[in-house]
């Protein structure tokens, strides 16, 4: 079994920053890794990397704070990335990289009063993290493979990381030393400190597979896998190690699926818990800001920092006021049993926690490797003190779970068609010359345009040329389901499915059932995905049609519809004595989710599960 090299965790980095290295060194190394990932490994994880100067400038401010013992948080001086659909003020005022249609609209504003998302302000200004770059994504967050980003797909780094892991040999016991050596000697040509001939061999191989000449290649051996989407860059940057915390968004699984496919931890907190202000909307009632980290422990730290400590929660309230839907968020008091620590010893950290295993999520499409990982994960949690509770079909129906995928696409497309109306070439979107761009190229289009006013022609041309295929498909589908003759049959039906499923899931949680009912659970364990990373082709994409690609999301959508906090954790998925293999990945993502506001409990269970 090939293992990727160990990842630097936020806790370790934070400790090293306070003892052995500076944030400038750490962030320069991260930037080197990012550059190596982009230029040498051709990962396409980033749409923009900050200059070494901009990174150093941020890091030196963090260094001063850390040196004087005034670090803002554990994230102070830690290299992070932000997904391309989030406004980050100074470096990227309008999040133009989330779609080609916005790329005519680069607005540069150097004053302090810039358009900045709430989450980037909290992460960079209040927590003191250092921004390395902006990560790639499927256009407007629509897509599950990282192939709809308008240019070359984003690639899964795991095959390369496994190679690198093999090359640098088994982990030394002294991980601090290992990372310090890397950071101090870091260069953008060889940040992994490979031997020159090994490096050359690796780069040749990358070149071979990523070059456009595909005829001679045996596709079955291709190491070019999808990282999952739409937060592809966020997961890839974390999996490769250039980012210790990658902020992204999750609408129907956009953080959890890529995390499962890149062996990272993807966390979608409760809907509304982190303000969406400054985040380009895809489906507003589902869009949730979250992140990918290298481990569950990192996720716990990141969550605590972004949400603020208990004392500073008052301040948080004033920030969330920019997102009205965030006012609905109330953090859920962890049940008294779990608060009564330290009953859970290190041996049994999950004492008293009830973990639900819903039959409804056990679909026959699930590959054996994934089903076995699920059982193994459940047994492991049980061995750590948790009580397993099976949730019968009568409580949560598999029918609702299966329908949830259709309901999700109706609702998400409807909201997308609404949210994307603004890209009409007037304020946003390239202003196309109708005649040049569209009419002359295609005789059929001419007749379509003939009935339109000039304004309508402009808008149509802008949208037809500015949006990618997948976005156009979803906007058209959304426009259709919102039309007066389909609203009642499609949109309302989808809303009903959403309500029914959310309610049935909610009723299984301990906090919502009567006390005497002992059936209530604290968290639920299900797989993150029913499939493994697919091979993608730099020219032809995944070869999956978009409806098949939709099905990738069936395990993550129910939590999105219900707004539940959910985390995907990688565990080893290999089955002893079989040859079954998951392609790019030896690991399988398992998902834990709980009632709204139960992030702390969900992450605590995740931290245990990670060692399964």
């Amino acid at each position, binding site marked *: 079994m090939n293992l990727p090299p160990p990842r630097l965790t936020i806790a370790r980095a934070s400790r090293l920053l306070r003892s052995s290295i500076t944030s400038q060194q750490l962030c320069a190394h991260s930037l080197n890794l990012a550059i190596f990932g982009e230029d040498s490994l051709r990962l396409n994880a980033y749409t923009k990397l900050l200059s070494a100067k901009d990174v150093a400038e941020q890091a030196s401010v963090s260094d001063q704070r850390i040196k004087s013992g005034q670090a803002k948080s554990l994230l102070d001086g830690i290299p992070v990335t932000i997904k391309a659909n989030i406004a980050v003020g100074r470096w990227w005022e309008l999040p133009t990289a989330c779609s080609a249609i*916005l790329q005519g609209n680069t607005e540069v504003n150097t004053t302090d009063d810039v358009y900045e998302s709430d989450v980037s302000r909290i992460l960079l200004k209040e927590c003191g993290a250092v921004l390395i770059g902006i990560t790639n994504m499927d256009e407007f967050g629509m897509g599950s493979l990282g192939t709809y980003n308008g240019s070359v797909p984003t690639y899964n780094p795991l095959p390369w990381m496994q190679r690198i892991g093999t090359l640098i040999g088994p982990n030394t016991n002294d991980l601090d030393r290992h990372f310090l050596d890397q950071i101090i000697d870091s260069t953008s040509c060889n940040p992994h400190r490979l031997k020159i001939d090994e490096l050359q061999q690796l780069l040749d191989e990358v070149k071979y597979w990523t070059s456009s000449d595909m005829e001679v290649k045996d596709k079955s051996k291709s190491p070019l896998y999808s990282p999952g989407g739409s937060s592809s860059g966020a997961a890839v940057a974390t999996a490769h190690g250039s980012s210790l915390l990658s902020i992204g968004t999750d609408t129907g699984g956009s953080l959890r699926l890529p995390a499962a496919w890149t062996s990272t931890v993807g966390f979608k907190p409760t809907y509304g818990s982190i303000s969406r202000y400054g985040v380009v909307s895809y489906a507003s009632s589902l869009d949730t800001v979250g992140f990918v980290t290298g481990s569950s422990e990192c996720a716990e730290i990141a969550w605590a920092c972004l949400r603020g400590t208990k004392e500073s929660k008052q301040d948080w309230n004033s920030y969330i006021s920019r997102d*009205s*839907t965030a006012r609905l968020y109330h953090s859920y008091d962890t049940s008294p049993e779990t608060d009564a620590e330290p009953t859970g010893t290190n041996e049994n950290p999950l004492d008293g926690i009830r973990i639900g295993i819903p039959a409804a999520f056990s679909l026959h499409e699930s590959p054996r490797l994934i089903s076995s990982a699920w059982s193994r994960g459940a047994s492991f949690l049980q061995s750590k003190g948790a009580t397993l509770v099976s949730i019968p079909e009568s409580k949560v129906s598999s029918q609702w779970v299966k329908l949830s995928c259709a309901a999700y696409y109706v609702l998400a497309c409807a909201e997308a068609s*609404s949210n994307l*109306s*603004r890209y009409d070439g007037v304020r946003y979107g390239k202003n196309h010359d109708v005649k040049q761009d569209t009419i002359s190229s295609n005789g059929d289009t001419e007749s379509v345009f003939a009935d339109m006013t000039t304004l309508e022609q402009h808008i149509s041309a802008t949208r037809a040329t500015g949006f990618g295929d997948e976005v156009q498909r979803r906007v058209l589908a959304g426009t259709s389901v919102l039309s*007066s003759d389909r609203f009642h049959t499609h*949109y309302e039906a989808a809303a009903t499915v959403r309500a029914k499923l959310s309610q049935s899931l909610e009723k299984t949680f301990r906090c919502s059932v009567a006390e005497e009912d002992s059936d209530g659970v604290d968290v639920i364990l299900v797989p993150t995905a029913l499939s493994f990373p697919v091979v993608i082709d730099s020219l032809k994409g995944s070869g999956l049609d978009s409806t098949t690609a939709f099905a990738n999301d069936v395990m993550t959508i129910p939590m999105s519809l219900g707004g539940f906090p959910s985390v995907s954790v990688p565990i080893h998925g290999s089955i002893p004595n079989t040859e079954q293999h998951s392609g790019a990945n030896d690991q399988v993502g398992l998902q834990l989710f709980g009632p709204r506001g139960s992030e702390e409990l969900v992450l605590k269970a995740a931290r245990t599960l990670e060692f399964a």
Partner: protein
Amino acid sequence: MFRPHTASSYFHRSLLLLANRRSSSALSSLSGASISRVELTYDRDTGIVWQTSSSKRIRPLYQTVIGIEIHAQLAIPTKLFSSAPTAAAPPNTHVHPFDLGYPGTLPSLSYSAVKASILSASALNCTVHKVSRFERKHYFYPDLPPGYQVTQQRWPLGSDGLVEFEAWRAAQPAHKKGDEKKRRRGDISKDVNANFNDANLSDGPSLVQLRIERLQMEQDTGKTTTHSTTVDNTTTYTSHIDYNRAGCALIEIVSHPDLRSAHEAAGAVEKIRRLLRHVGTCDGRMEMGSLRCDLNVSIAPLEDEFDASSDSDASQYLRNMRSNRSVLPADVGQRVEVKNLSSLRQIIAATEYEALRQTESSLDGVPTGRETRTFLVRPVNSQYPLGGETFCIRSKGDAVDYRFMPEPDLPPLVLDGETLGYDDTATTLDEYISDMMPESSDEAAVRLSKDYGLSDEVISVIISDPPAIAMLDESVDIARKEVHKLNHDDKELGSIPTLAANLLCNDLFALVKRSALEGIESTPSEDNDDELQSSLNHPISVEFSTVHGKRLGSLVAMLVDGSITSAMAKKILAIMFKDDLVSTPQQIAQANNFKVIADLNELMVLCESVVLEPKNAKQLAQYKEGGKNVWKIEKFFVGKIMSQSGGNAHPEKMKEALALVLEKVGSL
């Protein structure tokens, strides 16, 4: 977050909208042929379209059926969902990124807008719903940056309201019955068969009831203006957009089709306008666009309804029509929406035009379908001197599907104690409304009579203009505080409200009216308030007075103190109104040397000097002679002394002093 400079810098891209559907669609004006075939007139009071011949009514053909939609801009300092100010400003300076639909910006509902909407809904007797929701209404237009308008559709804030009003003609109590000379230009109907009208309206001004279907909160759009430049005989049209208005808070008020005539429609709009102004939620300036009206006009055939030759049958019909408004007449045609009317005059003109146009189409055998039309202000056809022609912007075939969708960025608006800002979160919506609603005019009348002891006549004048109530209250308060002498008896203090009310009703109203008249070129006859208001497009109200309650109150205090006479008070008021808009009445009195001389000794000195003046020796001699003409001499001296004092002598005290002086002098 509001950034005037950076925001405005994004706008230097003017938009070329070029020809859109409006100009390409043919203006459907009435063809000359059809006019010559059937001569029609529209009665604006009854809403009946008559077939006429040589201006003589032959047969009633159709009845108009009208519903209204009003868009009122809420008088609040910021926009509905952003912190950008709403005050007038250079184009594109009051713009928040949200107003421009910056990707990622989110709405934050303004509490002031919620409050103003609740008050408006209550003023129209609507049920205010504890839970209402926002929805998005989609269409593409450059002045709507996000591509959708946030509005309320299925769950509005208010519904099921009722407004009672008098039709426009009868709106003025001063209207003289049988006064047929003063006709509005172009008012053909009235001249044609005045007897018929008066016979049926003689029951006096009756109240019309209009049911309000809904009241909802929504966003306004930006404002598009078209500019043309001609270079080398080529005219280029450019459209410029000002986003200052984008996102301002509106309430939309939708009525049932309960109205039957042009004058009822105008009366209804005027009443709603006054109600909103009374609760202070909309300034109601139609000419400024802060209150805009759309009409839904359709016609219903009358042929079988009544025999026009019988007056009694006709009046019976009209009575039925008025009492049974909630039932739509049989065979009513498709409704035609006329957009964006910005004065009562336009409402009347557009209704008349539509009544006639739809009748003609129907007579031609092609009834009008459901369509949306816009109003042309400038007269095109000599038949419609008020203007009022409408032209089609959308017919049923290309009706817009607005694709309504629940607004996912806003949670439902729940009007509980917490949202309404009470510390006691158990406070209910009803309690909030009774706390916040200003006094109604009926309540004010009772209070003015009880607390101030004003006469019914004065009260009726004051409550007809709600700002006058507030002004009276303020001036009484001020006067009571400023009265100097501590030894005023209760009677003198009790005279304050009456003095204030008299100055307000008699003098200030006259000044306001006169100054309003000065603004009009062709002065309508001054005693027809109806006509005056229709040209002004705003009521004659002390709201537009340059003298406010504070200065009026000080003036009253001076009167009560006796430091000025009532003649001086009138003069000071006129100066405050027109010449000196800032000084206090005390300063004006001083500057003009208005000061009552009430001191007996001072007055005696004054009297003595006049009486003993050599040129008055003859009169003094006559006085000394005595006899029946003595009072004439006294009067002569009073006049002389008053003019000597520059009008400042206290009349009563001066007579007292004169008597003493004459007694003294006479005894010499």
